[in-house]
């Protein structure tokens, strides 16, 4: 692979053209505009194309094999990929583990694991949640005990997105039961093919196995498969990049849903109904105003300013807006709202698909209720 150009030095317009050409030229023959996640066997060709061109880890520094994009350029890349309808790859390695290792990993860990993410050799799953630890993540009970040179892991993780595709999983494990909940957790790396690891797929509301449970029964991993110090896993895990917290509130999902709503309304003969228009325009204004709010955060990123707890507003409003749009779709689609498959084979017209895909957005990555609690305390400074 030849050295990549300095993308940050390009003008935004030039970079946008570059990305557009890239995706149009290189996107393999796999589905586009899918509302549900594709599995590794389907999406791998796209991962490999990105990998071969050095584009799989846009935010990683160039010296570690990334594109080294700043926030503004990264946003353009995401926008252009989404405009084209490029499938989302198994990106827990590139998006979560990579940046986390760059910040907290040892030199040996970086040297070993980062290239394997870049090449697609390792596909990672995130093992934070447990049956008893969801919103209250610090309540994790999956336990790891040091036995000589090895951690011995027992317990369970759940809701692991595309965990069945992964060959590695990072987990939060309880390593000290005697201290405050947050202070006794460690961040461990576990190969999925280790003896004692089993998984069970879970079907979601769309009857697709998109997540799974992972069980650990006397699983042994070398002592150095820990990121950060023992019992310091909580702060390691919390170190999600500031700009990921911004991008999760991007208005694109809602904007795309709004254009599907228009098509559904046209098909249903509702597009000219003034009552429908009243509600449509209200939603449209929500999307536009969200875009403006979003831009203020992108500006902050561009200027290198800190992103505070208030960024939760973006995700709350975006995810609920997406849901409200999907709810109007269901009403307008009339009896067709109940169809399991897209009417006329046109996914754009499938109200139920949007409705169902909108449900988890207020649950994962911090539920809307938890985020409102955070806003009330950290931003509004209301009493406990």
């Amino acid at each position: 692979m030849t050295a990549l150009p300095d993308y940050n030095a390009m003008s935004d317009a030039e970079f946008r053209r570059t990305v557009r050409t890239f995706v149009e030229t290189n996107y393999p023959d796999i589905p586009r505009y899918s509302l549900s996640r594709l599995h590794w066997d389907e999406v791998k060709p796209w991962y490999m194309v990105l990998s071969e061109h050095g584009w799989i880890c846009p935010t990683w520094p160039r010296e570690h094999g990334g594109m080294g994009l700043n926030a503004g350029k990264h946003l353009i890349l995401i926008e252009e990929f989404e405009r084209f309808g490029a499938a989302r790859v198994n990106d827990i390695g590139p998006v979560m583990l990579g940046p986390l290792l760059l910040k907290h990993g040892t030199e040996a860990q970086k040297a070993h694991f980062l290239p394997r993410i870049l090449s697609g050799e390792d596909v990672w799953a995130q093992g934070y949640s447990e049956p008893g630890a969801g919103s209250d993540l610090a309540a994790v009970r999956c336990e790891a005990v040091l036995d000589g040179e090895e951690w011995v892991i027992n317990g369970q993780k759940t809701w692991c997105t595309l965990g069945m595709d992964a060959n590695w999983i990072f987990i939060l494990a309880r390593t000290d039961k005697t201290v405050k909940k947050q202070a006794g957790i460690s961040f461990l790396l576990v190969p999925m093919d280790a003896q004692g690891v089993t998984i069970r797929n879970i079907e979601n509301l769309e009857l697709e196995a998109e997540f799974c449970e992972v069980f650990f029964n006397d699983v042994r991993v070398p002592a150095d498969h820990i990121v950060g110090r023992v019992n310091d896993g909580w702060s390691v895990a919390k170190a999600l990049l500031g700009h990921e917290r911004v991008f999760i509130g991007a208005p694109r999902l809602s904007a795309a849903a709004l254009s599907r709503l228009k098509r559904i309304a046209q098909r249903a003969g509702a597009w000219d109904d003034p009552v429908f228009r009243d509600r449509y325009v209200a939603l449209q204004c929500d999307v536009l105003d969200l875009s403006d709010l979003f831009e203020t955060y992108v500006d902050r990123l561009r200027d290198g300013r800190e992103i505070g707890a208030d960024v939760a507003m973006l995700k709350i409003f975006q995810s609920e807006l997406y849901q409200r749009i999907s709810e109007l779709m269901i009403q307008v689609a009339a009896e067709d709202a109940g169809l399991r498959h897209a009417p006329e084979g046109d996914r754009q017209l499938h109200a139920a698909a949007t409705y169902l895909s909108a449900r988890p957005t207020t649950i994962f990555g911090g539920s809307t209720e938890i985020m409102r609690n955070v806003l009330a305390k950290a931003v509004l400074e209301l009493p406990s």
Partner: protein
Amino acid sequence: MDGSMNEDWQENARMIVESARAVVPADGALDRVRKARFDGAGFDRAVMQQAAELGWPLMWIGEEAGGLGLGLRETCALMEVLGRGLVPEPVLSTMMAGALLQEALPETVMTGEAVILTAWQDVTGALDWQGGAKGDLLIGTKVNLRGAVEADLFAIVTDAGLAVVPRSAEGLTIETAETLDGGTMDRLHMTGVAADFLPCARVEAVLQDATLAHSAYLLGLADRALEITLDYLRVRKQFDRPIGSFQSLQHRATEMKIQLELTRAAIAATARRFDTGADAATRAAGAARCKLRAAELAMLVAREAVQMHGAMGITDEADIGLFVRKAMTEANLFGSPRQQRRMLATRLDQEEAA
């Protein structure tokens, strides 16, 4: 309905609800319902047989014609129980056929040998039923039948009258599509089916009855989904407390309860008006109002139930998902809230003119 001036409606309703236990397990178990999904028409003929033995197809046939002659209060009591149990069988469509055909309802339907469905709707998104007849032939399309692929007979509603035709009739084809709840939503295409038309003057009235009865099904569905959710709020613990102790969830649970009781009251009062002789305008408005609120209720509870269950609410394994998918499938039948509001809006001017 003209019938049921019966003072004993409460006793009748109690008996009907009791008899429904044969179909809906008292413990709310949904194993049967879960298994019946995505398998042909998504319902069980043996249960339709049971329904016939319980006399449900005769519900809306007058006593003088050999039926039960029961009213909307009894019907809504039954439909609510069926909704709680997410019963997938097309009981209501069969009752409609009985109401339309009266003594002409085929014997095989009464014995449970045959399943009859009512085919009335001309197009998705509107409540028109007049189409389908040309001369003495059935020509055209009837849409949104649940489970037509398993039916034996169709009672086809047209402005030329009613026609009963077998599924195997020459010139009749079925276009089937799977629904989210595991059943089907089917279209009948009729390209010149020979038929005898029976005159029928009560189509609008039967559709209003059915709309109200369907509202009661949605009420039952929402009631049970709320119960399941409240149970979850009581047992699910995070931060060392039941999540039901968090006020933000308490307030939203309360809102669902308010909506539920509004729906229940509206349906009960409207059913009473139907049973005690309301005029056509009152009936039309009453059915629309109940259907509108029941559909909104079902979708409100579905949405909140998922959210309050967290990731568990996104799975197919948890029963709450069955309610969500059923609500999505059923909420817009007999007119979406949007259509009902439009219909009520046009009546505003008629009221003023009167």
